[in-house]
């Protein structure tokens, strides 16, 4: 259990240290570098990150890192990229794992191989200690460009008390879509016409919702996008249409989930207040659930259909071009430190994200933690089913039509096949200029 008092005390001391760092420093050989970082699911992770960076700063005297909180994954990507264009990039940034491709395309980040060579290592050797599921998003055209830092997958949280109340076995969560529907229907509770408890909720805002949908599409046997080439998405494929049909049925045929768009903040609140018996959400929110759920909850794999499959999410460290040699070295020193097995393990324990390094789980602290929190173990066990997060050219634009499509289906504004067809048409239009060698849209 992450004690709030302790956290506040630690954060306070961190803030004191940070304010000390603001004072004009005496001239020294210290290399000052900037580090941009986002938070995705929990804002207070920003405070803990500053504390971690302070720990690094006081652990040695060669490098001083200024940690700058830059908002969401999308905002951080936009800001870091714009800062690079303006000639003032941060040395290091933590960016959404599927954002790496975009930076490589704009020729803004350093390949990691160069740093590894200086340490007498290679990308293959380096990646051997990382879970296979996180490799793809860190690589572009076979070269490593990012070091995975925090990773997550969608996971199923369920309220054991609600299960018991509905006459279900609290130790047996749904394992597939069929069971999800059966149990979901039993879990719905009504007061007259008013639903007071839904069977299931999951985030549906553009971005987060696309990520969850990708999981359902892959569980339905599909690909969602071309993992080999970032100019193609499979929005109008049988598996995608099937996943959207499943949404439609959950919302309208069975009434298991609301027929309006639920953003992640509402999903979490509804789960905590008992208004949603199950939620599919990021493992990055595990810490939040641990702190806030006032009831017995369980954690399970996201139910599969033809197979179990979840996309990996999270963020990775990248190093920007345009640095002096000293800054480059400082940046790599910091990245190496913060992505060490110990640091990744510690970050995993406070946040709920899983540690991308396999050796983090061999550490005694980590094993003790897993024993105490079996829910974190479920997230790790699910890793064998992970696949890369969709990454395409101009992915924010490409995500929008599918985000709209899933919302249309949930709101009953379009059938699954209509929505899928429209999303595909729009995405194709957006991708056309990238795919067309003339660099000019096809009519």
């Amino acid at each position, binding site marked *: 259990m992450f004690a709030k008092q302790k956290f506040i005390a630690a954060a306070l001391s961190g803030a004191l240290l940070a304010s000390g760092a603001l004072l004009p420093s005496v001239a020294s050989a210290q290399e000052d570098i900037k580090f941009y970082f986002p938070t995705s699911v929990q804002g207070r992770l920003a405070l803990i990150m500053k504390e971690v960076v302070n720990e690094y700063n006081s652990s040695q005297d060669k490098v001083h890192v200024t940690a700058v909180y830059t908002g969401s994954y999308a905002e951080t990507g936009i800001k870091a990229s714009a800062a690079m264009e303006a000639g003032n990039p941060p040395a290091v940034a933590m960016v959404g794992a599927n954002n790496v491709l975009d930076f490589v395309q704009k020729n803004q980040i350093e390949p990691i191989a160069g740093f590894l060579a200086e340490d007498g290592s290679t990308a293959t050797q380096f990646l051997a200690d990382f879970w296979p599921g996180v490799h793809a998003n860190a690589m572009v055209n076979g070269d490593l460009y990012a070091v995975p830092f925090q990773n997550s997958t969608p996971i199923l949280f369920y309220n054991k008390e609600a299960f018991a109340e509905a006459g279900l076995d609290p130790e047996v969560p749904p394992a597939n879509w069929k069971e999800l529907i059966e149990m979901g229907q039993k879990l719905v509770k009504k007061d007259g016409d008013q639903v007071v408890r839904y069977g299931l909720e999951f985030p549906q805002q553009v971005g987060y919702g696309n990520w969850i949908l990708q999981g359902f599409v892959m569980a339905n046997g599909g690909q969602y996008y071309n993992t080999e080439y970032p100019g193609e998405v499979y929005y109008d494929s049988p598996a995608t249409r099937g996943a959207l049909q499943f949404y439609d049925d959950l919302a309208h045929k069975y009434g298991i989930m*609301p027929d309006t768009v639920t953003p992640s903040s509402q999903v979490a609140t509804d789960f905590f*207040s008992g208004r949603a018996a199950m939620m599919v959400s990021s493992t990055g929110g595990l810490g939040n659930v641990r702190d806030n759920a006032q009831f017995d909850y369980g954690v399970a794999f996201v139910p599969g259909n033809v197979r179990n499959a979840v996309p990996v999410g999270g963020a990775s460290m990248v190093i920007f071009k345009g640095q002096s040699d000293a800054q480059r070295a400082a940046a790599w020193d910091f990245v190496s430190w913060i992505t060490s097995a110990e640091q990744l393990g510690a970050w995993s324990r406070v946040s709920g994200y899983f540690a991308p390094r396999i050796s983090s789980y061999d550490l005694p602290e980590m094993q003790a933690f897993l024993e105490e929190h079996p829910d974190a173990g479920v997230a790790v066990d699910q890793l064998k089913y992970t696949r890369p997060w969709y990454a395409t050219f101009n992915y924010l634009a490409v995500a929008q039509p599918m985000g709209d499509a899933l919302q249309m289906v949930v709101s009953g504004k379009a059938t699954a096949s209509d929505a899928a067809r429209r999303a595909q048409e729009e995405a194709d239009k957006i991708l056309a200029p*990238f795919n067309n060698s003339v*660099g000019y849209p096809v009519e």
Partner: protein
Amino acid sequence: MKSELKAWVYLAPALFFLVMFTYYPMLQVLWDSFFFKAYGQESAQFVWFDNYKRLFADPAFSQAVRNNLIYALGTVFPSLAVGFFLALALMKSTKFRNFARAVFFFPTLVPLIAAAALWIFVYFPNVGLLDYYLGKLGFGPTQWLGDSNIALYSLMLLAIWKNAGFYMLFYISGLQGIGEEYYEAAELEGATWFQRLRYITLPLLGPTTAFVFIIALIHVFTYVDHVVMMTHGGPIGSTNLVLYYIFQNAHEFNDAAKATASTVVSVGVLLAISFLSIRTMERGIHYES
């Protein structure tokens, strides 16, 4: 002739910035809207009207235009009406009325982004301020921002709350400018409350209404902070407004071509409205001075 030179010297600074940040960009964006620069390519190609074709073929753009019209109608008239009736009620200065005026006016002063931050909670389903107190009155929860049929109206309500107090001020000063003698005369004639409203107050407030109307119109086309904060244009694009569409294409979607073309279209619409409203404003100015 000396006056002529002097005038230009005095005008120069303001004129410089006016040209630099209003007229030059208008021409610049018009010129740019005929070019298309592919991702990763160095130079842009002249493509005639292709960007406009792409823009008008984009369902998200037509939706944003439609939304903006609904938003304009549903925000401008109600907030003017609310402002007017508040002004009628609070025109006379008493302690209570001054306090009430302050309450209605205060939302005008706060940043729209801060108001939006608060209203995220106001609109939060079940546990939010609105649902919590509506629940006490026996109403069920509503997806104020999650239901694509409702979300735009929720943003309108926020805009009315934010701006009505501003318009109220203009109406109060307008009302205070109407001479007592009109009402005294009307009273002698035995006019009813409604007749006085209809035949004296409203006509004499014409210039005020025209002025406030224009300010309100500017508001609905140039403030989308709440969209950025609360809905990102969703769900299903139901709260996407034209300026947000421009922002999204320029800032997030790497589609400068669509952003420039839609800027040209909005500038065109605003120019048309200003040509019409300058007449009104001129009339307003003559009334006042």
